[in-house]
């Protein structure tokens, strides 16, 4: 071997080491990659903590809106599982052959939240001023909120839309809107006083059915995570976080997705 050959090999080796150093661990194939809709992120992170402890499999999480996740999956984003905020887009991906499993993991619950004021049905019906909700056109919580307002004949002075339920929540939290229809999981997450929010009766709107999908090319560990998600302990955690599950929802008949 000539010395110049050795030099090139040396260089290539060095480059290999450098690439190894700079490639983020999340690019390793043995990590599980999950995309999650904004409202479920904090709950999912608690689930992941338990899962990682039990199975010693690392999980990387990306948060985006369900619409953005949909577009990412269609353009080949390397996710194993998607926790969406609705059932429409998971069903669409399934019909286009992108998935190998689709299942409902939670039902979102809506609350009327007025910081610093007692919240109840009458307060909602008489509410004037700016009310923040998620965008009804593409956010499931927004659609449910609009259904509720119509049914209860609430007419706020101004209805402002957050891109998703997290933004609607922030409009209220920063005081720019005095009240909002937000997710129970959000007020639970911040441990807000129970007097400030009122749980909207689930029959006021279509159920906010949140589905997960396992993508076609996903690692086999994805099913392990799904099984962990439907484990009784995890189900309890999801319920405590402010969601209903297949066990607790009283609406019948239930749609459980592809496998139902």
């Amino acid at each position, binding site marked *: 071997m000539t010395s110049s050959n050795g030099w090139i090999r040396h260089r290539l080796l060095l480059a290999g080491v450098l690439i190894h150093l700079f490639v983020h661990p999340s690019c390793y194939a043995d990590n599980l990659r999950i995309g999650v809709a904004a409202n479920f992120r904090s709950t999912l992170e608690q689930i992941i903590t338990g899962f990682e402890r039990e199975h010693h499999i690392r999980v990387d999480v990306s948060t985006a809106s369900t*619409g953005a996740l949909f577009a990412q999956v269609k353009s080949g984003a390397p996710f194993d599982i998607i926790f969406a905020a609705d059932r429409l887009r998971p069903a669409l991906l399934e019909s286009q052959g992108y998935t190998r499993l689709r299942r409902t993991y939670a039902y979102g619950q809506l609350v009327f939240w007025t910081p610093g004021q007692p919240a109840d049905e009458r307060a909602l019906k008489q509410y004037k001023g700016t009310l923040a909700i998620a965008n009804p056109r593409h956010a499931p919580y927004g659609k449910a909120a609009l259904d509720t307002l119509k049914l209860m004949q609430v007419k706020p002075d101004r209805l*402002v839309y957050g891109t998703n339920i997290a933004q609607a929540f*922030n409009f209220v939290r920063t005081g720019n809107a005095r009240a909002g229809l937000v997710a129970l999981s959000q007020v639970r997450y911040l441990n807000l006083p129970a007097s400030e929010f009122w749980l909207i009766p689930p029959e006021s709107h279509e159920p906010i059915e949140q589905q997960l999908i396992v993508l076609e090319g996903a690692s086999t560990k994805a099913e392990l995570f799904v099984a962990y998600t439907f484990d009784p302990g995890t189900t309890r955690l999801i319920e405590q976080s402010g969601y209903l599950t297949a066990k607790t929802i009283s609406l019948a008949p239930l749609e459980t997705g592809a496998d139902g």
Partner: protein
Amino acid sequence: MMDSDLISLWLTLKLAGVTTLVLIVLGTPLAWWLSQNSLSRERGLLRKILQNIIEPLVALPIVLPPTVVGFYLLLAFSPDSLPGELWQSATGTTLAFSFYGLVLGSVIYSLPFYVQPLQVAFSSLQRELIEAAATLGASPLDRFFSLIVPLCRRGFIIAICLSFAHTVGEFGIVLMIGGNLPGETRVLSIALFDHVEALDYGKAHVLAGGLLVFSFVTLLLLYAVDRRWQNGTRTT
């Protein structure tokens, strides 16, 4: 294009137009002050310090993520904070979710795109010309409008076009403080985002393509103007 998209188009043009007007009124004196300050040799220490602080402040929106500006504006607009409280007691409305809130955000966001080209134009003025006009008895205002403005027209056109186009392209701040109200805060970039989120790629294509063509044509014209007037000043 749908009706609601036409409303968004009109709103976007209105926002960019009003923002540019505000920038012409506020940004021109600022650009002048900055250009004269950096030229004058015997300036006081205080002015020097002020200049050294204000110049990077003006440039900040170029490097700051719009979400930073949007986040602070959202906090400032809240009726619980002083600016928000003052605005509410004066107008009875909130700055968030309003057209004026967007104007304020856009003025901050587009400020460097107006001030910097103009500051460069002012700095490259031949001072002898202005001094000659002064000795001939032209008042400062007269000197500015009949001498400096025509001499710096290239700088003005670039500044106006850039701040207009930059405001048309604004997204992050509007997303954070707008609240998506049709005719009030739902500008084209937000309408486009909505179409994509709702998986309506057909409508998204119309807006995205339109914005792409608009931006390209603006820059095309800008470069053409730049080249022509650069040559023009050389020959005259």
